[in-house]
């Protein structure tokens, strides 16, 4: 059996070529040894990230159910008004997502030359770099903004244990922040490795990271609605 007919199964096995936690089984798909790039490697990344997000969804659904139950119990539930800074933060996060999307699309146009895709590092298009860095900067800015919002609230005397609403506010925004931090680690990985990854691998990872990042956007908007609009 000639090597070229090895299907995608083999692709997903090449161990160890990437950074930790990047979900890296799929290096072989980038076409070493004359093998075809695997369409399944891309699917595998997408599936993996969506399954992870299903789990994240359950985490926040669990917290949401606790929120709703606790709110209905009433008692000393005292809702504070949304700090205006959160609106700015929301816009920053949405902008970050848009930037990452632009960055991802900068890779979409490039077709690997010849029948085989590039094996070693590609010339990454400048637009990719610019927008990726913009996404990272905006993401960091969002986290800083969140920290400032926490600061402002505690200056007003609203702490984690002040009342159930504030408890949920800090818990939910904190959990969201932690997840966003994970996304930033992935973005940092892309930033650091973008010149050394094969094109298709870079594209797959950017795509997976973008899915996660957009999801965090949606999650943030959902949490805002839950915390300050939902009655």
């Amino acid at each position: 059996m000639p090597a070229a007919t090895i299907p995608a199964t083999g692709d997903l096995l090449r161990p160890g070529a990437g950074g930790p936690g990047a979900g890296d089984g799929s290096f072989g798909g980038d076409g070493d040894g004359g093998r075809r790039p695997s369409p399944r490697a891309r699917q595998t990344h997408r599936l993996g990230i969506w399954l992870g997000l299903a789990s994240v969804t359950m985490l926040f659904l669990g917290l949401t159910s606790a929120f709703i139950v606790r709110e209905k119990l009433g008692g000393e539930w005292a809702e504070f008004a949304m700090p205006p800074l959160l609106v700015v933060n929301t816009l920053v996060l949405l902008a970050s997502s848009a930037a990452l999307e632009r960055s991802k699309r900068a890779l979409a146009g490039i077709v690997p030359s010849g029948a085989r895709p590039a094996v070693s590092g590609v010339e990454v298009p400048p637009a990719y770099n610019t927008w990726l860095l913009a996404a990272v900067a905006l993401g960091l800015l969002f986290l800083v903004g969140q920290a400032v919002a926490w600061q402002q609230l505690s200056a007003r005397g609203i702490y984690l244990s002040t009342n159930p609403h504030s408890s949920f506010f800090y818990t939910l925004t904190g959990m969201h922040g932690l997840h966003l931090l994970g996304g930033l680690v992935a973005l940092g990985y892309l930033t650091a490795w973008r010149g050394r990854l094969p094109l298709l691998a870079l594209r797959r990872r950017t795509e997976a990271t973008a899915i996660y990042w957009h999801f965090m956007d949606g999650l943030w908007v959902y949490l805002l609605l839950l915390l300050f609009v939902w009655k």
Partner: protein
Amino acid sequence: MAGHAAVMEAPTGFIRKYIFSIDHKVIGIQYLLLALFAVFLGMVLSAFMRLRLAWPEEKWPLLQQIFPQGFAGGPMTPEFYLAMMTMHGTIMVFFVLTTAPLSGFGNYFLPIQVGARDMAFPILNMLSFWITFVAMAVMVMALFATGGAPIAGWTSYAPLSALGQVAGPGLGAGQTLWIVSIAIFCVASLLTSLNFLTTTLNLRARGMSLLRMPLTVWAWFTTAMLALLAFPVLLAGGILLLLDRVGGTSFFIPGGLVVSDQLIPHQGGSPLLWQHLFWFFGHPEVYIAILPGMGVTSHILSTFARKPVFAYKAMVGAIFAIGFISYIVWGHHMFMSGMSPFSSMAFSITTLAVGVPSAIKTFNWLATLWGGQIRFTSSMLYALGFVSLFVSGGVTGMLLAQPAVDVALHDTYFVVAHFHIIMGVAAIFGIFAGLHFWFPKMFGRMMDERLGKIHFWITIAGVYAIFMPMHYLGVAGALRRYAQLTEFDFLRPMQPLHQFITVAAFVTIAAQLIFVFNFFYSMFKGKRAGANPWEATTLEWIIPSPPPHDNFGPIEPVVNHGPYEYSVPGAAKDHIMQTAPAEEARR
């Protein structure tokens, strides 16, 4: 095939090969060894419990020297008993029943059985093991925490678990470590299940259609789905519980609570909320423990009865049905906790509905055996033991599913008997069955059949001797979670039964040494195993024992047959390998 060698070069250094390995087979064995350590630890803890229950006032000078606090004054203190109970349950449920059947065997055999060379994300796979390892280490630390191990039970019901040291010994640092360990475990389980699902969906060999997958794969797949969606809810609860303890919040702590003569400054939380979050995870968790055992049992019954699994599609459907229903039955753990009768009835009906797919499985197992040429290997005996235990443990579930009956029995040994038989012992028999079946593949040597059979007979007699009498105890009103039952006049006549159970438990525990000896002795000195010692049909049996680093070497498996083609009329042999040429069946 030069290109191939470059793709799957085996690591050579000791650390990359055995410690931080990304080979799913090594990771599977790492999980199994972790579970082996955990099961012995858990068993020792249960021995302490049995000691106290049988002879509550007896003094144990030797133990007093080892545990001066736990045996302060001579007899075991009730707090020490509760700590043993909590840690026994926690370690067994998380680090044995979740770890061995799913992460252990699943890691080793799922990729091979679907024809992949590794998991979809090998590095995440390695991380999942080491994160589990950290979780285990933190849990063991809880045993030695200042103030003792936690005493709130494996369910860690709030507010007891939420208050800290004021509520009792072990509820300070010990309980915090408990929550942290469980949270870490949740993360590891996400990585595992993500890998299982992606690998099953995306990395199957050519020809391995979904309905040609062995039932083991279906079971691991469904279990992974349960774990993926159930553990995050436990994590959510765990985070809130931790914040109640260290952040001063009141998610689970009600107002006006007076504990140890102190008014607790929290207000407005709901202890019931913790129970909902916990059991929304907790019930699927029960199936996380048992479903892989069902898969393994189907696989082994078919192999050693030399017959196809009866009604394969119905078996797949039943696995899915059980998995789905497991999400809508959690309320049956809370009939006693205050629940509207309407909710109780709904949960009762969904719970009873589990009986339907369970019965489908049981009858299909019997039909698989019917008329087969049964080979009574030790692995087959364990699989048959699984069926027996699944029925005995499942039937009592139907009784407990009824709120009116449950109210009487819920806090008694009847429930202890029920969940130990079905979730604990049956799952353990699934593990034993799988281990005896796959040992030759994993280590290239056979386990000793005679020792395996001796171990089987003592163990099955032992576990029934331990858990059957607990049903009587429960009906007689013996309360679970109590360190001492002799203080109730009406329970004192039952004490000899408790002593009988304890003796049976000690004998059964001792018999496990036979297994341990067999396991390690066979690993080095057992009879050499060929590629396919059981004449089985699935993909793991077409490759050498133990398999090479890339599982299939230069061959790329192409699947032409279903997983259980035994005794096909007109075929040359009594079994057709999944990779056999398509026309072989008709030859």
